[in-house]
């Protein structure tokens, strides 16, 4: 029953949302796609009446740009490292949590804590934990802290490692980022996987127990298959999140996206970082980069879906 | 307040393009007398709920008019009609207490009807007392049993003192025992308040037991309107005959020849004034009399003794259904042979229907039966 009064009312209720979405969501989609195909587009000259040639120039520029390869490499590397590690750890923690009763709620709360943090703020804490303080001051005798992480390593007879100070290696930098990103990504994954585990019918486990199935076998033959939709979900969202990694690196390394002394090169910059670096002066180029990012995310997501379609048991 | 439905029709447009539209209610005309309890009865999808919603104002008729008394209410919104509606699943607001639920309709009154807080509370308690839930006013719906929730829903519908009370499948969510209790309760409340009440049900027993009048519907078309007993005793067509009564009526393929009704070649009844033709014969379970000389011979399947009555389950090759269920006096049981049973029939419990239109063409009357006994 569609009466005209209800129609009119519905549109009235939707009006604020629609107006805002038109300006800040729909128009940007159209416009960003448009300007990414206008070679060398920038808003300032556009206002002054400049005309831009239609073509793939922006995309070409982005791909040929030296910094872009670095950004792409860093982003990919972080995705490939953090998603499997965090998913595996989260799965292990979730399964363990699901098997215990005492301390369950307390531990759940603790594991969730990293979620309610400011990724810049805690990034700064991680930096403090990894950094050597007083290291670079020459000539003047000063007490030096190697950073708590190196202190702990020393207990096991390892280190010290120059994680992120001036002159630190790329591998050490990536290691710090991976640790931080995994730490940050765990809560969400644990929550989703634990939710999945709790909805698994207990009868499957009882049946397995009656059959005398071993715990390891239960994990791989029952838990993982039954949980596969949730696992697929956290992997997909993990990749999407990984491709958008940016603020956690700012938290760790600051706005120059690299250890002190790396200057304007931003050796640890990411795709999103690249987009924001061009946003103020080269909107056309930023748009092209955003479309490339969107394309990559789309391909990876579809790839994930394809794999999970073959592997996921619903 | 009498309620008049005049050529009421509701057509739902088809959901898919080019699909068929659905005629939910077709040309329904009826005058509901003031202060009566009316049951709208029919299988699901027959248009009974749509009729109720149109009386209520939640759905607009495609054509036709609705009057409350002399007022044409066809174009009025529900709140301006003065109706109370009780939903099948009660639709109590789960976050409000019983009291808040009952008060809710009163708080919506505007202008001249606006009431003071005390007056509202008094009204709410009055309504609650009527349905005997005044002890439960501070509970939440989730803390009540199904029957109690039902009462709250009725109290909420009554609190505005509606001109017409509408109940949508009021008993379907209750268990068997509560159902019996609640239907007496509805009858009592209706009689106490004297509000014209319309309720919808698919359960013929429920409708028969409490209604002053019943309306039997099938695919949007009214089949018969009348007092429950009249409709039962004199169904206008095969559908109505089949729909009313438990156990249901037994239907046979029969033939009329020379004013005699034949089932399986045997003349079972005299039928004056009926021309020769193939017919359906409807025989109520209570129409069977065990009689060694009886003309209707059936194959005996089972005898179920249920205290006062005995139900005989048998079969006959001209029966439309695989089994025939008859209810007879326990006294005559010794007449039953091992393999077959012979019946005589009470003429006024036998109906003859046209084979094509399924309209009733004959029913015997009680006098004839008395004559036959002589």
């Amino acid at each position: 029953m569609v009466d005209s009064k209800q129609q009119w009312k519905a549109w009235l209720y939707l009006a604020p949302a629609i107006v805002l979405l038109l300006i800040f969501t729909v128009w940007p989609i159209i416009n960003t796609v448009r300007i990414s195909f206008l070679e060398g587009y920038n808003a300032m000259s556009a206002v002054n009446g400049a005309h831009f040639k239609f073509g793939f120039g922006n995309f070409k520029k982005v791909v040929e740009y030296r910094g872009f390869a670095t950004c792409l490499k860093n982003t990919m590397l972080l995705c490939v490292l953090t998603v499997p590690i965090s998913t595996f750890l989260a799965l292990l923690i979730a399964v363990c949590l699901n098997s215990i009763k005492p301390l369950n709620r307390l531990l759940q709360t603790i594991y969730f804590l990293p979620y309610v943090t400011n990724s810049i703020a805690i990034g700064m804490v991680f930096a403090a934990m990894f950094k050597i303080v007083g290291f670079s001051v020459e000539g003047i005798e000063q007490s030096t802290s190697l950073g708590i992480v190196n202190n702990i390593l020393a207990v096991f007879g390892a280190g010290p490692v120059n994680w992120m100070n001036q002159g630190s290696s790329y591998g050490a930098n990536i290691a710090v980022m991976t640790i931080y990103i995994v730490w940050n990504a765990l809560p969400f994954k644990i929550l989703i996987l634990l939710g999945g585990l709790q909805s698994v019918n207990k009868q499957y486990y009882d049946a397995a127990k009656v059959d005398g199935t071993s715990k390891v076998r239960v994990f791989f033959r029952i838990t993982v298959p039954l949980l596969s939709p949730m696992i697929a979900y956290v992997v997909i969202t993990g990749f999407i999140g990984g491709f958008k990694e940016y603020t956690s690196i700012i938290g760790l390394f600051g706005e120059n996206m690299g250890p002190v002394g790396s200057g304007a090169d931003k050796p640890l910059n990411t795709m999103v970082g690249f987009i924001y670096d061009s946003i103020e002066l080269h909107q056309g180029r930023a748009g092209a980069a955003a479309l490339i990012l969107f394309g990559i995310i789309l391909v990876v997501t579809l790839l994930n879906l394809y794999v999970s379609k073959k592997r996921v048991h619903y | 307040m009498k309620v008049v439905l005049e050529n009421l029709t509701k057509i739902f447009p088809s959901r898919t393009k080019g699909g068929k539209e659905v005629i939910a209610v077709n040309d329904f005309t009826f005058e509901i007398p003031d202060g009566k309890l009316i049951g709208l009865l029919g299988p699901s999808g027959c248009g009974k709920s749509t009729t109720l919603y149109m009386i209520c104002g939640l759905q607009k008729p495609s054509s036709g008019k609705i009057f409350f008394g002399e007022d044409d209410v066809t174009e009025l919104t529900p709140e301006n009609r003065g109706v109370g509606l009780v939903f099948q699943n009660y639709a109590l607001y789960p976050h409000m207490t019983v009291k808040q639920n009952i008060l809710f309709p009163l708080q919506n009154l505007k202008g001249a009807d606006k009431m003071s807080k005390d007056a509202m509370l008094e009204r709410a308690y009055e309504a609650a007392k009527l349905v005997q839930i005044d002890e439960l006013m501070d509970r939440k719906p989730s803390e009540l049993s199904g029957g109690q929730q039902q009462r709250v829903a009725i109290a909420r519908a009554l609190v505005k003192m509606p001109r017409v009370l509408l109940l949508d499948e009021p008993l379907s969510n209750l268990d068997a025992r509560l159902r019996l209790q609640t239907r007496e309760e509805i009858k009592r409340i209706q009689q106490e308040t004297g509000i014209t009440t319309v309720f919808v049900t698919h359960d013929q027993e429920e409708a028969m037991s409490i209604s002053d009048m019943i309306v039997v519907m099938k695919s949007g078309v009214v089949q018969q309107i009348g007092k429950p007993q009249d409709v039962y005793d004199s169904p206008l067509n095969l559908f109505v005959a089949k729909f009313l009564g438990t156990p249901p009526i037994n239907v046979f393929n029969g033939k009329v020849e020379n004013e005699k009704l034949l089932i399986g070649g045997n003349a079972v009844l005299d039928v004056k004034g009926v021309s020769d033709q193939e017919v359906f014969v409807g025989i109520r379970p209570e129409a069977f009399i065990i009689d060694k000389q009886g003309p209707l011979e059936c194959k005996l399947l089972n005898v179920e003794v249920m205290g006062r009555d005995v139900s005989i389950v048998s079969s006959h090759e001209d029966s439309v259904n695989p089994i025939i269920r008859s209810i007879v006096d326990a006294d005559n049981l010794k007449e039953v042979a091992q393999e077959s049973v012979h019946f005589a029939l009470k003429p006024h419990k036998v109906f003859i229907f046209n084979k094509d239109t399924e309209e009733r063409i004959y029913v015997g009357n009680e006098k004839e039966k008395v004559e036959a006994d002589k």
Partner: protein
Amino acid sequence: MANETMMEKDMQKVTAKQRVIRIISLVLVYAFLILMALIVLFPFYWMLNSSLKSLEEYRWSIPSLFPHKLRFVNYVTAFKAESLSVSLGQLFVNTAYVGIVSTILSLVVTVLSAFAFARLEFKGKNILFAGLLATMMIPGELFTITNYTTVYRFGWTNTFIVLIVPFLVSVFYIYLLRQNFLQIPNELYLAAKVDGTSDIKYLWKVMIPLSLPTLISITILKMMGAWNSYIWPRLVANDGAHSLITNGLRNAFTDTAGDIDYPVQMAAVALVSLPLFLVFIFLRKYIMKGVSRSGIKG
């Protein structure tokens, strides 16, 4: 007979062995879980520990696991620390203001749209809704590029409006609330109609109370969003007067010569983290529920 006792003995042996295995595995499970919990907690501990030390103590080559002398003054220093030409305290106020205003406005817009999508019938409803959902797939950066020039053209830079309005409508929140509204039986709406309840009153008296948990989840996610936003304010509101806390935090202690007062920095970080933690402690249930349904951080 002898056979039977043999078997019984075997059985006992097996159960005894199984019991030992079970205890060992339980110990291992707890050990793993507690170790992981300590790793998760460690940064928070280190933040608090460091924030109460003097810079000298912080630089000890063998770190102290608990400050020798608790220097709460670090927190006062942090609060007053200048960043982007204003104090961190001012940035706290800015962030709270933006967070509260944008949350309230966002709730109003979300509730109205979700109601229209869940309860009202209008032409093109399904197409419109599907269209909105489709925009959720597109990465936010794509919007930001054009929005950046749009707000410049509107002259909104360095105002609070620019921090509130562009991200007021979240398709995701509308979706979440619509799902919740749909779970409320339609009969309640019809019952209210029969009683003459207006749409707005029905919304206020029935739908909002019934979907309170979802609304709380949305509130918290939106607040967290404001509290953690960094990129957008850095682009369009970087004059200090309208900057938000995260921008100030990162800028107050920019790493140049390596001679940062780390304890004060950690105190500032603790101050920034505190409000979120408090909210989490009180509304843990709603946050976890909201997040498990939401999927994407912030």
